[in-house]
């Protein structure tokens, strides 16, 4: 008997020791839990990824807090890759932000997963007017279900960025660079200029006899990411469009991709062929993560195509001036540019949707947008604020018409929005890598994946039909 009680006493002590251990573990991990859920209703958690834009939005948040002393905005910035991972986890674990900057390539998936709040159903954001914003932006952020999932913040388009020293060395004027034309047969004056701007280790230019394409010191055209997502947004997307290629059957919410279009294949074969000729780097030559920015900044390339959101980054160049020029004119006579833009979205499990919507509305108001314009980091989404950005960039020596002319002339086109973005990317990213790395005819690769991509949408349709049939 005595032994039994002894055992029990010991056991309970041990159990409590175990319990203490477990509690300790919980306490340890407790620091990982987000604090202050109780006061969360007055705190708006706001996430963004771009460091360049952070100061402007911080300023907006401060203004908002002044006008709404009852609210408190807490901004968190994380790098691009990390950002989407954290967001995913946030949705899974309910630790995400209330409001976050969303990207057109990502939001359809989130909308499908029902983790976004429709802005047209929130009081503060229901009345945002499409006419206040750059044409098409509201449409860009309207889901296939007709609900609006983003309040536009900015828009962007693609242009050429150049190293002005290399341009001067080659005797190419910025005006010339901005008025070139290309075609898939011989590359036109654009390829000629790119070849001329390419210099090998012996100082021989790409269009001169004796050019050594295997030992290139400066490439005419930079490239780091062969796919740019699904559509070569900053790379070949604008070229392909000028050759008459449409990514999908409808600009928004199309259900058929056109990767099997010969116009695209011709464009890609010509474009990636530049790397065979030594005018553009080969796959793997530069670290892809570093982007074309580091290629241009390190003096390894003369020209790159990139988005307007990168202007602040390129403007930080110290060793030489960076300028911008319009994308070349394609076979169809237009000089198009891919357009896109980011927006604020509200998480479906926002602690206080009302406050979140008010904040979002403020971020889309002229008051905040003019702050953004003043910072000169992006083209603000509102038409009444965009001029100020243009002025600032022009002062910095950038030709903003390279970005705005295609838009004004109606040659700019939006990045398509479709369902299954991640599934499409899973097929296209390796395909574009393959085309650049191994240089097979692009038709061979793309004709293989295009049916697989369209099957995704056919399956959807079948499922829908089955549902409605019931």
């Amino acid at each position: 008997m005595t032994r039994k009680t002894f055992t029990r006493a010991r056991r309970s002590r041990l159990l409590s020791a175990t319990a203490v251990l477990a509690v300790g573990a919980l306490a340890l991990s407790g620091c990982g839990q987000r604090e202050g859920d109780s006061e969360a209703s007055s705190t708006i958690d706001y996430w963004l990824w771009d460091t360049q834009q952070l100061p402007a939005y911080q300023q907006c948040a401060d203004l908002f807090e002044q006008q709404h002393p009852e609210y408190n905005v807490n901004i968190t910035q994380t790098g691009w890759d990390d950002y989407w991972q954290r967001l995913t986890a946030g949705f899974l674990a309910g630790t995400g932000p209330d409001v976050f900057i969303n990207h057109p390539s990502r939001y359809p998936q989130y909308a499908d997963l029902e983790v976004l709040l429709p802005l047209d159903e929130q009081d503060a954001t229901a009345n945002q007017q499409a006419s206040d914003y750059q044409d098409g932006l509201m449409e860009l952020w309207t889901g296939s279900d007709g609900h609006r999932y983003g309040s536009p913040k900015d828009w962007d388009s693609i242009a050429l960025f150049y190293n002005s020293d290399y341009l001067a060395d080659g005797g190419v004027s910025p005006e010339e660079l901005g008025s070139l034309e290309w075609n898939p047969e011989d590359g036109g004056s654009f390829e000629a200029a790119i070849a001329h701007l390419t210099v090998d280790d012996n100082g021989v230019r790409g269009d001169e006899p004796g050019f050594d394409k295997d030992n290139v010191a400066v490439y005419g055209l930079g490239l780091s990411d062969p796919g740019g997502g699904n559509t070569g947004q900053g790379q070949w997307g604008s070229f392909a469009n000028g050759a008459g290629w449409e990514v999908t059957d409808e600009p928004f919410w199309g259900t058929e991709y056109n990767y099997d279009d010969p116009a695209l294949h011709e464009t890609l074969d010509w474009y990636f062929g530049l790397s065979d000729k030594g005018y553009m780097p080969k796959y793997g030559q530069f670290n892809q993560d570093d982007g074309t920015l580091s290629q241009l900044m390190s003096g390894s390339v003369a020209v790159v195509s990139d988005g307007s959101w990168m202007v602040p980054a390129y403007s930080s160049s110290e060793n030489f001036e960076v300028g911008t020029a319009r994308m070349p004119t394609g076979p169809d006579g237009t000089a198009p540019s891919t357009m896109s833009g980011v927006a604020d979205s509200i998480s479906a499990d926002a602690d206080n949707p009302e406050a979140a919507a008010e904040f979002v509305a403020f971020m889309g108001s002229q008051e905040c947008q003019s702050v953004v314009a003043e910072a000169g980091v992006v083209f603000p989404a509102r038409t009444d604020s965009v001029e100020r950005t243009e002025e600032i960039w022009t002062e910095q020596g950038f030709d903003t018409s390279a970005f705005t002319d295609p838009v004004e002339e109606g040659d700019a086109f939006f990045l398509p929005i479709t369902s299954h973005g991640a599934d499409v990317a899973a097929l296209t990213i390796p395909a574009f890598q393959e085309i650049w790395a191994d240089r097979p005819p692009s038709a061979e690769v793309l004709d293989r994946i295009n049916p697989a991509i369209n099957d995704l949408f056919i399956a959807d349709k079948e499922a829908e039909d089955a549902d409605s049939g019931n």
Partner: protein
Amino acid sequence: MTVLTQQPDRPPSGRPSSPDGKRRRRPDDTRTALFFIAPAALGLAVFLAWPLIRGIWLSFTNYNLLTDPEFIGLANYRRLIADPIFWDSMLTTVWYVVLNIGIQTAAALTIALLMYRLTQSTLLRGLVLTPYLVSNVVAGLVWVWILDTQFGVGNQILGWLGIDPIGFFTDSAWAIPTIALVNVWRHMGYTALLIFAGLQTLPASVYEAARLDGSGEIRTFFSVTMPLLRPIMALVLIMTVIGSFQVFDTVAVTTNGGPANATNVLQLYIYDLAFDRFQFGYASAMSVGLLIVLGIITVIQYRMTRADSSDLA
């Protein structure tokens, strides 16, 4: 709870305790055992058995992590069979395993035999083991740097030898062999020590006999060492092959599946499906596929081991 009626025979332990103390011991033991076993049993049930069942269940659903799973029958498995990327990925993984295990086993066997014949030094064994101390992530990063196309010392050395730079991680033909070799680098010392430990268990008498027969070093190796070592090698292979099939870390930090899916090993594809594309159900079905493959391999290898050991017994 019923008490055992039949007392198993135990050797008299010479316990001079009272007879009724002995009778009372049994139920007491069961309860004590429950206490001792409880945490581990909880772990087994919650983090091994339950996930096993749940994983199989999820493979029959369209679970996307955010909304409730819906039973969709064999749809995931039908898709799996028709998914060219899955089969590609499977081939890539098998190619990796063949290279990794082939080279690693050969290297480890060489190291083990050298150590066995040359020295018993603990220092040497410790040095050989060093790469095993660092994580796969660190190993991957170090080799990405050493083998960088532009700035890596590896390609500088190749340059001195008059060889053009090789894109070890960026050339689709080189990427898998390179990753396989990185993991050989990390694991060969450890595997060598396993084989070494096996070598130490071999009876010395056999060697004496071989030596008396005038058998040379190489002949002894093939006629004596190898046959004796076979069961040990089989065991080493079971361990390493299963580990090798689950390769992820090194690929994730070096090539992340590229170029052009050349290194899209199964685990990476599963991860991508589950966490980038939210197709948790399909990813689960793929895990089941991997589980089946691993099961088959284990059974085959297990048979081999058994057969061998009975030969030797």
